[in-house]
C-alpha cells in the first residue's frame, strides 16, 4: 500500500519537475512546479511529517509559487515564443548533470544496506500517539528557539529588501 503510494507520488514529482524544466512558457512551467510541489507534499505526508507537508502546501505552493506567477505576469508580457529556450551550454549541462547524478547515486547505493527496513524496527517502533505538529512546535520553541527568531528577522529583512529593490528611484 505504502509502496504504491510512494511510486505514484514519486512519478508525479519526477514527471512534473522534468516538465518544469523543459516547458516553453514560464506560466506553464510555474503550474507544473506547483503540481510537483504538491506531489512533494504528498510524500511528506507519507513520511508522517504532517506539519512539514502542510507548511509546504501553505507557504511554498500558496505563497512562493503565487509570487512567482505574479512576477511572471509582470515580466514576461512581451515574451516571444519562437526564441530558443536553452542556452548554448545545454549539452555540457546535461552531461554534467548525468555525471553528478551518477556520483551521488553511487554514494546512495553504496550505503543502501544501512537503510534496510529490518534495521529500522530495532526499538524504533511506533511512539505513543503524539501529534506531529505538537512535537515540532515543542522543538521549535525549546531547542531551536534561536534559529526560529533569526528566521523571523530574516523575513523582516526580506520584506524591507524587496521593497527597496523594486522602487522606481534608488
Amino acid at each position, binding site marked *: 500500500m505504502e509502496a504504491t503510494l510512494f511510486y505514484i507520488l514519486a512519478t508525479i514529482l519526477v514527471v512534473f519537475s522534468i516538465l518544469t524544466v523543459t516547458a516553453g512558457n514560464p506560466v506553464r512551467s510555474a503550474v507544473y512546479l506547483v503540481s510537483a510541489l504538491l506531489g512533494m507534499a504528498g510524500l511528506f505526508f507519507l513520511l508522517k511529517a504532517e506539519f512539514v507537508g502542510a507548511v509546504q502546501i501553505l507557504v511554498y505552493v500558496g505563497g512562493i509559487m503565487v509570487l512567482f506567477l505574479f512576477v511572471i505576469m509582470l515580466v514576461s508580457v512581451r515574451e516571444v515564443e519562437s526564441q530558443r529556450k536553452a*542556452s548554448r*551550454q545545454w549539452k*555540457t*549541462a546535461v552531461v*554534467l548533470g548525468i*555525471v*553528478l547524478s551518477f*556520483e*551521488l547515486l*553511487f554514494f546512495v547505493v553504496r550505503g543502501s544496506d544501512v537503510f534496510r527496513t529490518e534495521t529500522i524496527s530495532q526499538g524504533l517502533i511506533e511512539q505513543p500517539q503524539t501529534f506531529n505538529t505538537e512535537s515540532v512546535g515543542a522543538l521549535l520553541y525549546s531547542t531551536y528557539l534561536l534559529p526560529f527568531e533569526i528566521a523571523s528577522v530574516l523575513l523582516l529583512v526580506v520584506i524591507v529588501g524587496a521593497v527597496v529593490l523594486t522602487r522606481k528611484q534608488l
Partner: protein
Amino acid sequence: MLNTLWLIPLAPLIGFFINGLFGLWKVARTGSGPKKSFVYCVACGSILISLLLSIGCFWALVQLDPEHRLVEQDLFTWISGPALRTAAGELANFHITWGLQLDPLSAVMILVVTGVGFLIHVYSVGYMAEEEGFYRFFAYMNLFMFMMLTLVLSSNYLVMFVGWEGVGLCSYLLIGYYTHKKSAGDAAKKAFVVNRIGDFAFIIGMLMMFTYFGTLDFTDLFHRVGEMFPTPESTWGPLSWIALLLFIGATGKSAQIPLFVWLPDAMEGPTPVSALIHAATMVTAGVYMVARSSAIYSRAPDVLLIVAVVGICTALLAASIALFQQDIKRVLAYSTVSQLGYMFAALGVGAAAAGIFHLMTHAFFKALLFLGSGSVIMALHHEQDMRKMGGLRKYLPRTWWTMGIASLAIAGVPGLSGFFSKDEILWRAFSNPEGHALIWLVGVLVAGMTAFYMMRLMFLTFHGEERLSPEVATHVHESPNVMTVPLIALAIGSVLVGYLGLPAWLGSNAFEHFLEPAFETSYQSAGEPASSGHSTEILLTFVSITLAGIGIFLAYYFFLKNKEKPAQLRKRFSGLHQLIYNKYYVDEAYDFLFVSGGKGWGRWLGAKNWGRYFSAFDNNVVDGAVNGSATITRLAAWLSGQADIHVVDRIVNLVAEVFEFFSSVFRKLQTGLVQRYALSIVIGIILVISFYLYLGV
C-alpha cells in the same frame, strides 16, 4: 679473435697516416692532391676493417659466459709513474698502461661507431667529391675514428681522456674544414674552447679519483669504490664531487646545459662531419663516460638527480628552440642536444641501459637525418634555409622516404626504433625509484615537440609549394647511389634496431640483459621495479603515442593545411617568439659575461707596446691614474646605462609581456555570463565529490 682488439682503433690510425702523409707529400711535389679513388679506398677500407673486426670481437664476446664477458688487453706501459700518497694515507703508483677493454658496453659502442662511421665514410665519398683537400678530410675523419675507438675501448680513465681530447681536436679540425669561411673557423674555436671548460672539470675529477682510490683503471677503480662505499653516499661527499666534475666534463662534450652552445655553431662543418661527430659518435662520448662510471654515479644519488634534471631541462630547452629554427641543420643540431638530454635523463634515473639503447637508435636515425639533409643541401647547391625549400619530394624520392623513416623514428612512432628506446626511457623515468613523474611529464612534452618540429622539417622541405630560388630549381636532382645507399642502410637500421629492446609487456629486452653486467645500479632496476605492473606502462606508452600524434597533426595543420597560421601566431606572440628564436639569448649572455672580457685580455696582451709602457712609466702612471679614474667613472656610468637599457628594460618588458600573455588567457574566463559561472561551480562540485570517491575507493 679477441686478441685482435687492438687492431680496431689501429686501422683508422694507419689510414690517417697514409692519407695524411701521402697527401702532403703529393701536394708538395705536384701541387694537387692524390687520386680520389686511392684516398677513399684507404679511408673507407680502414673503417671497413674496423667494422668487420668489431663484429668478430662482438661475436666472440657473446660466446663467453655472461658473467665473464670482460676481456682486457694491455698494450704497453705508458706512464710508469712515481708513488703518490692517497687520501687514505697509502702509497699508490701512478702507473698507466695503454689498455683496451671489451665488455658488453664497449662492444655495443664499437659496433655503433664503426657501423655508422663506415656508412658515413661511404656517403662522404659522394658528398665531398667536388671539394678540394679531399685527402685532408678523409685523413681527419680517420683520425677521428681512431680517437673515438680509443675512447670507447680504453680500460682506464687517462687513455679514455686521450681519446676524449682527441675527438675534440678532430672536431675542431673538421668543423673548420672550410678554411675560406670565417664563420667556420669561429665555430671551430668556439667548440674547442667550450669543450675545454668541460675537460678542465674532467681532469680535476680524474685527479680526485686517483687521490681517493689510488688507480684510474676501470676494474680496479670500481672495485675500490665498491669497497670504500658499500652504500650510496647519504650526504655530499668526495664521491659526489667526483661524479659532479665528471658530469661537467660530459656536459661539455655532449652539449648539455650550460655548455651546449657550441653544437649549433658546429653545423658550419661539412654535413658528414655533423652526422658522424655531432650526432652519432663524439657527442655520445659523455653519455658513454657516465654510463661507464655507473659504479660511481649509483653511489652518489644527489648527482644522479642533477644529471637527470639537467638532462631533461636541456631536452626541453633545445626542443623549444628547434621549433622555430629556419636552417635545416640547426633544427637537427638542437634536436641532437635534446635527444642527448633524454639519454642523460635516462642515466640520471638509474636506467643506464635505456640511455645506451637510445644512444644506439639515435645514432642511426640522427645520422640518417643529417646525411639526408646533406643530400638536400647538395641538390640545392648548398642552400640550407628551409624557407627556400619545399616540394622536393618528387625530385629527391630516396632522400624523402629515408628521411621520412628517420623522422617518424625520432618522433616515436610505434614500430620504429625510436619508439622503443624513447618509451623505455620515459617508462623508467616514471617507474624507477630514482625517477620522478615530473621527469616523465617533461619527457612526454618534449616527445610531442620532437614530433612537431621533425614533421615541420619534413613538410617544409619536401612537401607543399616549391619556394626554391630560380637558379637552383633547374638543377635539382637526386643524389648519386654512393650517397643514397648508405641512407637506405641507415633507414633499415632505424627500423630494425629497436626490436632488440622490446618493452617488458611485449617480450624480453634482450639489449638490457646483454648490458646488465656492465652497469651497477643501486636498486638493480633492470627488472620490474614497481608493483604497477604492465598496465601502467601500456597506459604511459599510449599517452606518449598520443602526444606524438598530436605533434605530427599540429605540424601537418600549420605547415600543410593552414599556412598562414604560423605567421599569425608569430605576430601575436612576438615577444615569446623572439626570445626562443634567438635561443634565449644564451650566446649573448655568455658573450657579455665571459667572451668580451677574454677578448679584451687577448687584445691587451698582444698590444706589443711593452717598450713604450716601460719607458714612459712616470708620466703615464700619474696622468694615467687621473685620466683613468675619470674614465672609470664614465665607464661605470655607461655600463649601468647599458645594463639599464639592455638588461633591466628587457627584463621589465619581458615580465610585462609575460603577464600580458597570461592575463589575455585568463581574461577569456570572465565572460560576465552568470550561467557559465554556475556551470563552473557544478564542475567544481563534481570534482570535489570525485575526490571523496577517490579517497573512499
